[in-house]
């Protein structure tokens, strides 16, 4: 006997896009069902953003303690070397994930959203069957929000399995790899590679292109590059990964020579692709755009009342974009007039040091622009955190004629927390004078933002 549910809204996927859509729909009084096969929270919460940040935090702490053991820092010294038990680190990380996943469940309950654990399979655009522990449930919804997210991409010839792992497995390893080779120097590979390097793993990074973090300019990634060099991370740029042998990764260097990099783990982080297989997308007859589901500026697909959000609909594949789209779609279904029109979506890399970027890079802004760059070397707060010598800075890109801010980036310790101010400046349509006219708190890293605007206006104070 199959149960049949006929909700107003069916959300497929419990990640940051889907669960936010469901909560907002619930808040708006819409009868909502959310289907999630795994745990609530999606890639972001279970095997992405949050667990990686936990691991990165632990790795950073270990690295500092190890440094203190090697040589007294700020008068602090350790008598013996710190020890790392990765299973305990992973357990601590899991406790955070559990807490947040449980929190999502609670929020959904509070919003009166019915949650089904199981894999949805669509038979047409508005109807799906979910195989739950309690049996089959058929759902016939008035509105469907697709939020199935994305999965890691494999490198041809190096399938996942055995020693070859994706970012998901890297966050739950039973023991620390001795030699880790990371394929792909995007932000995921660098964040994890750096974290393992801090924990004592010998890390090598292989990247097909000539630059790490290819989305940013060389100036912005230079401090990260410098950290890798100083910490013995071998970087193979312009190199191709050919195959994994079990204890090594075969590559072809940029000189065209074969090389074998010893590795007890190979972490492949060459990108992610939308999850479009295995849940009946082919039965829904939706228009596609490349690998992605095609949507308009309201996240409407080609079929009426079928909506798609997040990684499924295109770049940037970021949790906060998915959430914003989810919230918007719920409001549209509730009868509000909305469209997705962000000026810019900020992105953050939790590398060492961190990078935050929003809007245009100087190279993208082109002519008629002015740039103000201010180094953390001249920022008191950065120095007081021993973070003044990593080459970090804040850089603002503005139009020369009217001083409108086109983009703003920073690299340095803890700069990810500046993302909110950066995004606000972009969305409010700020000009340099708005920043220079805002009193920034002393002593904080934010003063460097203020100074970068002053610099662009030609009168920085502390440089």
């Amino acid at each position, binding site marked *: 006997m199959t149960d049949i549910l006929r909700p107003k809204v069916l959300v497929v996927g419990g990640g940051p896009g889907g669960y936010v859509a469901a909560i907002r729909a619930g808040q708006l009084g819409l009868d909502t069902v959310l289907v999630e096969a795994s745990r609530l929270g999606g890639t972001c919460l279970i095997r992405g953003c949050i667990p990686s940040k936990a691991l990165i935090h632990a790795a950073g702490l270990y690295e500092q303690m190890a440094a203190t053991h090697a040589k007294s820092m700020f008068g602090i010294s350790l008598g013996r070397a710190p020890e790392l038990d990765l299973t305990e680190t992973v357990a601590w990380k899991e406790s955070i994930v559990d807490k947040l996943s449980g929190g999502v469940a609670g929020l959904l309950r509070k919003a009166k959203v019915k949650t089904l654990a199981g894999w949805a399979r669509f038979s047409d655009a508005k109807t799906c069957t979910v195989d739950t522990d309690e049996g089959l449930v058929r759902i016939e919804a008035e509105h469907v929000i697709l939020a199935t997210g994305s999965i890691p991409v494999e490198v041809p010839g190096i399938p996942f399995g055995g020693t070859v792992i994706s970012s998901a497995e890297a966050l739950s390893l039973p023991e620390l790899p001795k030699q880790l080779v990371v394929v792909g120097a995007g932000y995921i590979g660098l964040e994890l590679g750096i974290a393992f390097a801090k924990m004592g793993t010998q890390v090598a990074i292989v990247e097909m292109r000539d630059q790490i973090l290819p989305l940013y300019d060389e100036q912005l990634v230079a401090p990260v590059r410098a950290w890798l060099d100083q910490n013995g991370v071998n970087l193979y740029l312009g190199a191709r990964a050919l195959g994994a042998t079990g204890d090594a990764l075969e590559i072809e260097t940029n000189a065209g020579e074969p090389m074998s990099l010893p590795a007890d783990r190979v972490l492949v982080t060459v990108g992610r692709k939308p999850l479009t297989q295995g849940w009946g997308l082919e039965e829904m007859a939706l228009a596609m755009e490349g690998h992605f589901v095609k949507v308009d500026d309201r996240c409407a697909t080609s079929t009426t009342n079928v909506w798609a959000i997040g990684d499924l609909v295109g770049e940037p594949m970021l949790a906060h974009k998915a959430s914003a789209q989810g919230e918007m779609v719920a409001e549209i279904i509730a009868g509000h007039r*909305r469209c997705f029109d962000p000026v810019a979506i900020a992105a953050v890399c939790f590398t060492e040091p961190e990078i935050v970027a929003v809007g245009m890079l100087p190279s993208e802004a082109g002519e008629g622009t002015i740039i103000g760059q201010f180094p953390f070397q001249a920022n008191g707060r950065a120095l007081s955190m021993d973070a003044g010598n990593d080459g970090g800075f804040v850089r603002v890109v503005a139009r020369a004629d*009217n*001083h*409108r801010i086109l983009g703003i980036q920073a690299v340095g310790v803890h700069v990810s927390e500046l993302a909110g101010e950066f995004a606000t400046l972009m969305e409010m349509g700020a*000009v340099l004078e708005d920043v220079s006219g805002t009193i920034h708190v002393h002593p904080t890293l934010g003063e460097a933002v203020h100074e970068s605007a002053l610099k662009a206006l030609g009168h920085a104070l502390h440089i």
Partner: protein
Amino acid sequence: MGLYHFRLPDIGEGVAEAEIVLWHVKPGDLVKEDQSLVDVMTDKATVDMTSPVEGRVLAIHGAVGEQRAVGSVIIELEVEGDGNVTADAAVAPLGVLPPPEPAATASPLSEVPTQVETPSAPARTPAADAPKVAFATRAPAEVPLAAPATRRRAYELGIPLQFIPGTGPGGRITPEDLDAYIANGGANSVQGDTRYAVRNAVGDTRIIGMRRKIAEKMQDAKRRIPHIAYVEECDLTELEALRVDLNANRKDGQPKLTLLPFFIRALVKVLPDFPHINARFDDDEGVLHEHAGVHVGIATQTPSGLMVPVIRHAETRDVYDIAVELIRLSVAAREGNATREDLSGGTITITSLGPLGGITTTPIINHPEVAIIGPNKLVERPTVQGSFVTVRKMMNLSSSFDHRIVDGYDAALFVQAYRRLLEHPALIFMD
């Protein structure tokens, strides 16, 4: 204490406005939640609106009998807490509500100014008041710059930001820019560098009385009747010669003749061959009443608008008789003492503007009649006769027919037969 605006809710599919039938409250009253505030009537039903909040009535908008738009504020309440109105939000309705608050006919019961006037104090619309404020012009491809709240409000109101001048730094569209744009009815308040002043005044006139009757009747005719228009050219040289001669030789007591009595006599002559054109169509019942008598409505401009007095039983009158009756009816209509009898019962209508008649008109049929003819202006025009170009007195004859009753073919036959009479006026008077 907060301000709570009670807006006329969406009361049903397709209902855009509702009529205030009965107020249950007046300014100063304390109301409880769920207490009746006002009865409103739509085409479908009378609905009792109850208060969603507890509070004190500050103002009510709309006199009994007045139509109010769905979404317009009809009651302002003072409530505990924040209410649902902020100074900014209160400006929004300006752009969306179809009928602007009729300032001249504001409810006699309302003791405070209507809400739209409150927030748009002069200080809030600098762009409208100072048309010379500089702003960066925006290239077509350039994305307009505005804060998220401004963007959202504009989007909700269906206003593309591209056309709103931005007076903020960097060409940013400020909330005030949006207010000014809305206050100007979407007009670009800040024009280019020109010596001609912008005219922003809007005069609101309530369409009432005779004007409203005309509006309703025209609307009704256009909605019900699928009109076909037909225009033919007539040579009135002979008819004009006859008319001039009759006037030159008229006896004492005979009125001067215009062309209209001849047109009417010609109708009397031609209509028996086209009985379905001299008729009244009761489309609710689906019955066409073909009249033997010819009752000709004459579209007449009066100081308060268009009226159509009727020459009854034109078949019993000669041209002089008709001319006398025309004078009587037009005087009665203009002076406002035409009787109901004078103004009803037509079976066909003539609408002529004489020298203002233009080349072509597409007259609206006087429902429930099925035809209307509109003689255009009479002019001397070169025409070809045999191998010669000669000057003739020509007149176009416009006409409209109810296509439910009269097909194009019949309409053409009718007009051609009518034209034959006008071009050979002796035929009008031959039995």
